[in-house]
Each structure stands twice: as C-alpha cells, then as structure tokens.
C-alpha cells in the first residue's frame, strides 16, 4: 500500500522544482535587469531549499551564503556600473 504521505511530500517537492524552473525562466525573460537580479535571488533561494530536501545541508548553507547575498550584491554593483535596461 502506498502511503498517502509520500504523495504529499512529492507534491511539495514538485512544486518547489516548478518554482526553480519558473524563476530561472524569469531571469532570462526580464529586460529590466534589476528585476532579473531579483528573480535570480529567488531562484538561488529555492535551490538552497532543494538542496535541503535532498539532504545536503553543507551545500545548502554554501548556496544560501553565496547565492543570497554575495551574488546579488555583485550583480547590483554590475548593474549600477552599467545601464539598467537591456536594449534589444
């Protein structure tokens, strides 16, 4: 007999995976680069959660530390040094 809890767990897992793919697509689609940076932050956040679900806490902490703040900071610096909008 298949436990109904397994179904719920898989549903949550699939929803998070869909979120990762959706936010990654948003990064590509947005022409406003600050919006793209925001979507990238959301993507790295969900990737960190996915690593936690896959029982890799070390990688999750590294992803959280680097992906959440430092990557966002570097992208913000880069956007500030150039133009905000992508023009093509």
């Amino acid at each position, binding site marked *: 007999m298949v436990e109904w809890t397994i179904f*719920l767990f898989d549903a949550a897992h699939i*929803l998070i995976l869909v979120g990762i793919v959706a936010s990654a697509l948003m990064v590509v689609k947005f022409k406003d680069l600050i919006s793209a940076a925001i979507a990238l932050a959301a993507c790295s956040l969900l990737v960190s959660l996915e690593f936690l679900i896959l029982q890799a806490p070390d990688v999750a902490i590294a992803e959280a*530390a680097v992906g959440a703040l430092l990557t966002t900071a570097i992208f913000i610096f880069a956007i500030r040094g150039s133009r905000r909008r992508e023009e093509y």
Partner: protein
Amino acid sequence: MTFGPTELLLIGIAVLSAGIILALLRLFLGPTAPDRVVALDTVNTIVVGLMVAFAAYFQEVVFVDIAVVYALLSFGATMFIARYMERSKETGGVN
C-alpha cells in the same frame, strides 16, 4: 492509515509550497520592481518557515541552522536591492 505530528507537518509543507508558487506569480506579474521585491520578501519568509518545518520532518535537527543563515542573509539581499532602487527612477509597466 496513521495520523501523527509528522503527517501534520507534511500537510503544512505542502500548503506552504503552494504559497511559494502564488508568490512567484506576483514576482512574474508585478508591474514595477518594488512589487517584485515584495514578492521576494514573502518567498524569503515562507522558505525560512519551510526550512524549520523540514528539519522537524526529517528529524535531522542540524538542518535548522540553514534557516537561521537564510533569515539573516536574505535581509542583506533586500537591503542591497533597496539601496539600488532608492537612487534610480522607476519606469514601471514594462519588464
């Protein structure tokens, strides 16, 4: 079929995952950049809660450390984006 605290936590996890998808929809739609940051902030809070719930569900208690790391660092990301947006003019409407 058993129903215990673990199953209760699992129901909560599923509901919160649906909440993340709804908040990501606002991240996609939101006309201006501040709207998107609000959606990101919501996702941050929900994910911190989810991480604590997952730690309790897996009974791997050291997973809670990640939640604290994320709660502190997502604040920093919000600060950086807000710091940028303070100085720039919002056009809005087009993404």
